[in-house]
Every structure is written in C-alpha cells, then in structure tokens.
C-alpha cells in the first residue's frame, strides 16, 4: 500500500475517478499542465488529455456555472477553485443554482458535481489565502459540504463525492496537504458521506473537530492525558448533511464537550453543534459546551499562529470543561 500525503491522495482519487468514468472532467485555474498551484491535479492532463483536464479563464463564476451546465448534461465535473477565499464570485452559482436545481425543477435537472477548494490557515496567507468559509455553505440546503483530515479519508471521501448525485463542496485543509503521510489503499474505495470518524478514545470529554483542526485536537488530547483527562476526539468530516445522531451519541456518552474550528466563532459551525446538544442532550451534560475557534476578525497574516486555535488553546478549553 503506497504512503501518500493528503494532496497526493486527492490526486490519486482524481486519477482513480477519471480512469473509472469517462464523464469525469477536471478543470479550473492552472489545473492543466501546471497541475494546480498545490499540484493536486499533477499529471492529469498528461494521462487524460486536455479535453478532460483543462485550464479555464480566471472566473470562479464561470467555472462553477459551466460545471453546472456540464453536470445537467451528463458529465461529472470536478471543478477546482484555487483558494476557498476566491469562491465568492461563484457563491450565486453554488447557492442559488447548483444547490437548488433538483428542488426547483422537481428533479428534472440535477447537478452531480464537485467543487474542490483548499481552505484554512497555516501558510502565512493572510486575509485572502487562509479563510474557512464552511459556515456560509452549510447554511445551504441542497449542498453537501465535506472536509477530510487524513490522506485515507481525502481519497475515499473525494471518490464518494464525485459519485454522489448531488453537488458537493469539498474543502481541503491546505495546512495538512503535505504535513501528514499515511498508507492509502490503491484503486477504488469510498468513505460514506454523512458519517463521522472516531479518532481517539476517551471517556472524560469529547472534542468535535474537522479538517486541519483534527491533529490539533489530538495533540491537545495527548497533553490532557498527562494531566489525567481521557479525551475523545471526533472528526466530523461531513458537515452537511451532518451525522447528528453520531454527534449526540458521543456527547451523551461523555457529557463534556469542546467544539473546535478555525473559522470565526459567531454563527460558526460550532454554534450548530452547541445548539444541537442544548436541544437534544442537555440532561446528559456535566458542563457547558465550550467553543475554541478563530476570532471574529478577518484572518491576520503575521500573527496567524495566535489566530489559529492550537493545542494550548484546546487544552485550556478541555481543562475548563473538566473543572466545571
């Protein structure tokens, strides 16, 4: 079994999908001969030709709009938005069009397509190469939002997303593109959308997280173990539709919850987890839910290590939850 980085696993998933299904196309800005700014599409044009992996004009609205047109007409487009920060010109196409198409046409027209895009901080990208915009999209019925945190999941979730009958926004944690390696099965396999993953066992407290925050949570949990706290870590990996039952089950079993994401706090994904627990599991809770998030500010450049939640902040939250 080959050992791959997360970005190599994405590349492997794209090649696997394109070998299996001729209707799968990959396009976006600089994804052709250059192979993408992070090399996620490296080698695709060489192997599959420029009709199946190609560069587009610099227009996110055009990329997603054209992808919808291809999807309604029998193709399986996988569009890349170079950075999630640049996706907003396509917001209308994603939110008003792709996500609503099945509903508004009574199923006559559907948009099975994937929009892949690197998100999140940790590369000194400042305001416009660092954001985590998942909350905007999770507020959109009809869309699926997927965030892998390991090479194995990146491949399996991306293949499942490409085969899914509905539009999927696939957020790739760019901070993890090359920082972790693991064995990834060759060939085709999928990881079901809408399922979470238990990362680490623990009976005292649970940290819900996703994407680039998963290794941060694990590190904090290891430090907490030295203090005598057994901390469970759960990777949500599909944010929409969320495995709500799984979340509630973990919350009820443990009774102390920390929610972790790098996006701003206000109306962030953590608010949904907190509300869900308050509505459905309050009687199981031994402490209030604590959120560890980015600040409600734009994303800074030089001081990004203070903005991004790290193990220190997560451990502090764990200690507060445990002390309650």
């Amino acid at each position, binding site marked *: 079994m080959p050992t791959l980085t997360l970005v190599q696993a994405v590349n492997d998933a794209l090649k696997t999908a394109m070998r299996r299904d001729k209707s799968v196309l990959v396009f976006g800005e600089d994804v052709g001969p250059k192979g993408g700014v992070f090399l996620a599409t490296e080698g695709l044009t060489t192997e599959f030709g420029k009709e199946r992996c190609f560069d587009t*004009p610099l227009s996110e609205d055009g990329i997603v709009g054209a992808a919808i*047109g291809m999807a309604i007409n029998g*193709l399986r487009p996988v569009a890349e938005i170079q950075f999630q920060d640049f996706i907003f010109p396509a917001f209308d196409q994603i939110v008003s*069009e792709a996500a609503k198409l*099945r509903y508004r046409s009574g199923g006559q*027209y559907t948009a099975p397509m994937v929009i892949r895009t690197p998100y999140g901080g940790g590369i000194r990208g400042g305001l416009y190469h660092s954001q985590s915009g998942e909350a905007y999209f999770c507020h959109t019925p009809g869309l699926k939002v997927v965030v892998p945190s390991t090479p194995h999941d990146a491949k399996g979730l991306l293949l499942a997303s490409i085969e*899914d009958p509905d539009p999927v926004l696939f957020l790739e944690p760019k901070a993890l593109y090359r920082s972790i390696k693991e064995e990834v099965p060759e060939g085709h396999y999928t990881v079901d959308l809408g399922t979470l993953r238990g990362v680490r066992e623990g009976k005292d407290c649970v940290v819900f997280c996703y994407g680039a925050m998963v290794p941060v949570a694990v590190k904090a949990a290891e430090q907490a173990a030295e203090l005598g706290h057994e901390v469970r870590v759960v990777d949500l990996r599909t944010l929409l539709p969320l495995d709500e039952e799984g979340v509630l089950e973990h919350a009820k079993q443990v009774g102390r919850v920390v929610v972790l994401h790098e996006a701003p706090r206000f109306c962030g994904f953590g608010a949904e987890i907190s509300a869900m627990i308050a509505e459905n599991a309050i009687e199981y809770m031994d402490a209030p839910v604590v959120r560890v998030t980015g600040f409600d500010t734009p994303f800074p450049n030089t001081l990004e290590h203070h903005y991004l939640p790290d193990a220190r902040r997560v451990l502090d939250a764990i200690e507060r939850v445990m002390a309650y």
Partner: protein
Amino acid sequence: MKTESPLSVIQANGKANGYDPGLSKEELLHCYRTMLLVRAFDDTALKLQRSGRIGFSIPNKGIEATQVGAASALKKTDWLFPSYRDFGMALYHGVRAADMMNNMFGNAADSARGRQMPVHFSFTDPIHFFSISSPIGTHLPQAVGAAHAFKLRGESHVALVSFGDGGTSSLGFHSGMNFAAVWKSPVVFLCQNNGYAISCPIEEQTASDGFAIKAQAYGMPGVVVDGNDLLAVRKATMEAVERARKGGGPTLIEAKTFRMGGHSTSDDPSRYVPKELVAEWEKKDPVQRFEKFLQAKGIWTEKVRAELEASCKEEITAAVREAEATGQPPLETIFSDVYAELPPHLRRQGTEAFELARRKGDAAAGDGAFPL
C-alpha cells in the same frame, strides 16, 4: 464604431426581401398561432392575477416574434436556457399550455412541484427548456457548460440562451460570453433588448452603442436584428445555430424589440415609460408584421386570425380549468428533491411538520405520518 442597422426581412408590403424561411404553410401558421397563443396566455394570466387566482405573471406582449423566431431555428435535440419572458419558446416547441399553467398555479402537477413562483418553468420534454431561476444572468455560463458537453461528446446540438438587456450587465454575461468564445462552444446568446430592465432604460445599463457590439471584444460575431420581425430573428438565429453546429463557436444576437407591458403584473410601466415611446412601438406590432407576410403569401385573412384566436382562447381556458382543478402539492414536497436521498435531519424535520399538522387538524398532512 457604430452598430449596423438591424437586420430586417419583412418589408412594409409584406414581402420577405428575397429571404426564404424554408417553412411550409403549416409551419408558418404554427409560428403565427404560437404568437397568438402567447397573447392569449398573457391576457388570461393578467386576469387571473388581478382576480387573485394566481399571484404573479410576466407579460410577453411585444416580444413574441423574437421568442418564436429564435425558437423556430432549434431542433428538439437542442437545449433552451430561457429567461422568464420566453413563453413563446416553450409553446412553439409543443410544451402544453396546461403544463405551463400548472406552474402558474403552483399545483401538484407543476414540474417544479409548487416550489417556484409562477413563470419559473422547467421542462425536459418535448424540448429541454431549462429550469428558470430568478437571479439574472446565472444561466449564461450554465448554457456554455451544457454546450461544452455536446462538443466533448461529438454531438452537433446547440444551446440557445436568452436574456434581456439588463442581463448584459451581469457577472454571468461576462463569464458566459468569455468561456464560450475561448472554448468555441456551440452556444447562441440571444439578447432580447426590450428597452427596459424593470424600470431602467438601456442608457442606464450600458454606454456601448447597443449590445451586439460587445461580441467583438469577446471574439465572436455579433448581429443586430429587428426583434419584431419574426423572419429576421429566425434568419439570424438559423445562421448562428448552423455555425455553432459546424464547430464555428458562439454568436451574440441582439434582438431589438420592446416590452409593451410592465416588467411583471406587480409593475406599472406608465411611471417610467414615455407614452410616445409606447405609441411608436405600437405601430411595430410583431404579430401584425408577420400577418403582412402571411397575407402577401396568400395564407392570411381576418377570418384566419379570428379562428386561430378563438382556438387559442379555448386552449388557454382549458389549461386554466385543468390547472385550477388540480390540488396543491402534498406537504412532503417541501422536503423531497432537496437531495437525491432524504437525509436524517430532513426526515426529522418532516416528521415534526407532519405531527404538528396532524395535531392542528391540517388536512394536507393526511394521517400525520411523514411519508418519505
């Protein structure tokens, strides 16, 4: 540079200026009847809205020749990406007036299942008449994507995308035109310049000399046609369609016409359209223009008009009767078609809605069990 004068075919005397539209007598009368059918639909929809039986409509009066002339250039295997003011395109290709009326009433038989406002039609048969959305210009790059799929599969079908003068200011106009030209996609861009974007005249929309000229910057042909001349619109669209089929890429057609009614039934155009302008365009009525041509060919009389008008009225009346007799969509249609499969959170919300409806005695919820 100045835009050339619009292409026109039908002359004041009804002669076609040497142009042979290649349509049989039956086909010509079908074009004519479709325009009358659009008018009958419009008249009825206005009455239905004013009497509170439907909530909204979009008047088509004045634009019928553009709609029908363009639609007549397409085969059933081509795809239409319409605007909300394209009733004639659907009717020309044989969409049943009753199926359009089902949408106006938002009933259980509506292809959009009552989820959209009136006039937001969606059909796949007898032609792909793509689901209409309200945001302006979003369907231009979508048409390009669909056309690109035809091209990649080696099919010779084309996509025709229709939009108004206001649509040329949208993000989608730029991305759609640019992508289509770069990719040489088999797309026909039909800009229906009908004078106003709701209340804003074209001078407030663009400083260009018209809209067709914009094609030049994108690297595709742009032509201006008299949009009230059905045969001129047909001729220009046929040429654009043929070029697209042969791999020659996209074309922008600007059809100069005039919206003789409000933007919608909620709009009062007398607040912003000068009376003189309306009077001027009244003389250029597209239906009368085509009648002159049919008369010169010896296939039109007042009697023909009266008979066709009567049959159109009958068809629309029957459509209303059918649509009004059809009940509302069932409650579960709020939750279905969001995704291919109902996810657990929607099942839970649907179950809650059904249980509440049962407790409150709402008949629409049946026995109170969420059926999905």
